[in-house]
């Protein structure tokens, strides 16, 4: 990783008095390298937008420091932070046309007229808003306003580009096209971008690394692949991935040289002791209760195996999502072929220990992923 574009250390955000108000962001520390695209991913109210606004300077930092390109900025006014931002609510200037709105962002840079025009034209082409450049924000659709707002942020040269839900209002086809183009645009110019989203597809497609947040706490900050393969805790495990990971509580037991993971309803997953690697086995056997997680793609139907009963069956056009009543809860499995199964049909499922994620029952922290310790 090259030089740091953004360093957040020990940042807390309270709405209201410190230590007594609403604690929106808790002791956040993260570092983003120059040229990286990072997504802040989480559900509503997880603190991702608060974080973004603290970086931009619209919210005060209650505790901790933020540095942009090595400069401490958390006490500076927004104007002196050298960051660009696209707002979730677009926030275009109503009395100006789309073209003026975008050119306006360059005003402070004092560029010659021809250069401004060229930049506006190229961004407008990128975002497919060339035909509405002379229109006013109130006369264009939400999706067009969003693209204009995105354009206004991307046109600037800044140390950091902050994008708050930059594509929430776009149609799916356009979104897919623009994702690719915007990523290319950012990478080509070596810009550093942070986007806030609750859409994991968007985060996966755009970001080099994803910061998963929940309850104001950074849960995990990692590449999209590692988030899926090695979730740090139960929250990331169940939050990242579509359909979500299946999770069950299990009692660990041994019988006749085998390890059983006893599930509710008298079901049990039985494995040979040697099916686990030694460190994972030791960890398992040192505990009485664990939480196990299995990705829906990793659940297999088999002749032998643990019984379940089909409760829903959806063909999505390219894969089948089967939900089954299993161990007092629900188990979802994904198959790539069209599967005809009636509701209530009995099936047997088996789970390869290589695909088992084990979490601590009390803390939710990951213990092992397949054969490796977390």
């Amino acid at each position, binding site marked *: 990783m090259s030089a740091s574009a953004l360093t957040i250390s020990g940042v807390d955000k309270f709405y209201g008095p410190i230590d007594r108000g609403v604690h929106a962001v808790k002791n956040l520390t993260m570092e983003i390298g120059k040229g990286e695209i990072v997504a802040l991913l989480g559900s509503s109210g997880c603190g991702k937008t608060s974080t973004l606004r603290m970086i931009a300077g619209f919210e005060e930092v209650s505790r901790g420091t933020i540095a942009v390109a090595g400069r401490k900025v958390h006490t500076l*006014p*927004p*104007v002196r932070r050298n960051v*660009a*931002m696209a707002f*979730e609510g677009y926030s275009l200037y*109503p009395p100006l046309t789309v073209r003026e709105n975008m050119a306006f962002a360059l005003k402070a840079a004092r560029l010659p007229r021809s250069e401004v025009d060229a930049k506006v034209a190229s961004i407008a082409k990128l975002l497919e808003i060339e035909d509405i450049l002379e229109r006013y*924000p*109130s006369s264009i659709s939400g999706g067009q*306003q969003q693209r204009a707002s995105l354009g206004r942020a991307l046109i600037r040269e800044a140390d950091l580009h902050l994008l708050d839900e930059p594509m929430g209002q776009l149609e799916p086809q356009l979104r897919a096209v623009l994702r690719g183009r915007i990523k290319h645009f950012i990478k080509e110019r070596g810009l550093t971008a942070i986007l806030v989203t609750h859409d994991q597809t968007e985060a996966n497609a755009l970001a080099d690394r994803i910061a998963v947040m929940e309850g104001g706490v950074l849960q995990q900050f990692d590449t999209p692949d590692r988030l899926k393969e090695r979730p740090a805790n139960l929250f990331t495990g169940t939050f990242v991935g579509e359909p979500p990971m299946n999770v069950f509580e299990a009692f660990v037991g041994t019988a006749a040289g085998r390890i059983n993971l006893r599930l509710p309803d008298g079901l049990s997953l039985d494995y040979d002791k040697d099916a686990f690697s030694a460190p994972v086995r030791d960890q398992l056997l040192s505990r009485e209760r664990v939480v196990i997680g299995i990705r829906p793609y990793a659940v297999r139907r088999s002749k032998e195996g643990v019984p379940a009963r089909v409760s829903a069956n959806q063909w999505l056009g390219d894969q089948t999502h089967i939900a089954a009543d299993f161990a007092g809860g629900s188990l979802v499995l994904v198959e790539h072929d069209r599967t005809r199964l009636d509701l209530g049909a009995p099936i047997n499922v088996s789970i390869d220990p290589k695909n088992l994620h084990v979490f601590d029952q009390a803390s939710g922290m990951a213990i092992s992923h397949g054969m490796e310790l977390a």
Partner: protein
Amino acid sequence: MEHTSLLERILRGVALTLVVIFFMFPIVWIFMMSFQTNETILRIPPQLIFEPTLANYTALITGKLMTAAGTLDIAFMRNLWNSVFLSVTSVAVSLLLGVPAAYAFARHKFRGSEDIAFTLLSFRFAPALLVLLPLTLYFQKLGLANTYIGLIWVYQLICLPLILWIVRGYFEDIPADIEYAYRIGGHSWFATFRKIALPLAGPGIAAAGLLAFIFAWNNFVFALVLASADKQPVTVGALAFITSSGIQYGQISAAIVLSITPTLALALYAQRYLVEGLSLGAVKG
């Protein structure tokens, strides 16, 4: 265009005409009275046909009122000037103080901000007569009684809360992110206030200023008590027409016509701003 039947349009026209006649009647009647002498005005039954005379206006403009008892000096033109001066200056001072204050209340929540804003609003709750006696005593001590400065100061009680609260609402309607977008683009908050917030709230500020002007213009009781003849506005000056030799209805009407003309003209001119101001909320952010 909406589709309406002929009958519906006729009925609507009739209803509108009735309403307009009802509301406009006093003004039309006053306008007619202003061109008549006291004798024709007081005829019973009143008549719509009369011989118009400009005597009332001449008397007002020259400042010489002829009555049965002799010639009386009246300072109507002076009063009119006082009204213009007091109202315009009061509104200007209120705008200067009130608009930045409204912006501060709209954008920055600080400890006690709501209390201060409410206190400012509460100036309008206090009955003027209750405030007047202590105010007069203070003003006499301070040497502010019967001065323009003193009157403009008291007029802030009328104008400032009005402007503050109306304009605050307009500022609150502007999405804060529009201002943030401007600030992050490399502009200070003051530039943002001037270039983004003020223009966007412009129609609202115009509407509030106009309303404050009308309230200031119509004020009677503060000026009655705190100003002597040479500083009185038209509202108080009109009392001069109740003379020992009778009430000069003709002059009173002419004075009313002259004194409502500036506000009327201003309202007509500012009408489009008022409408724009009221529809500002329809602008998507």
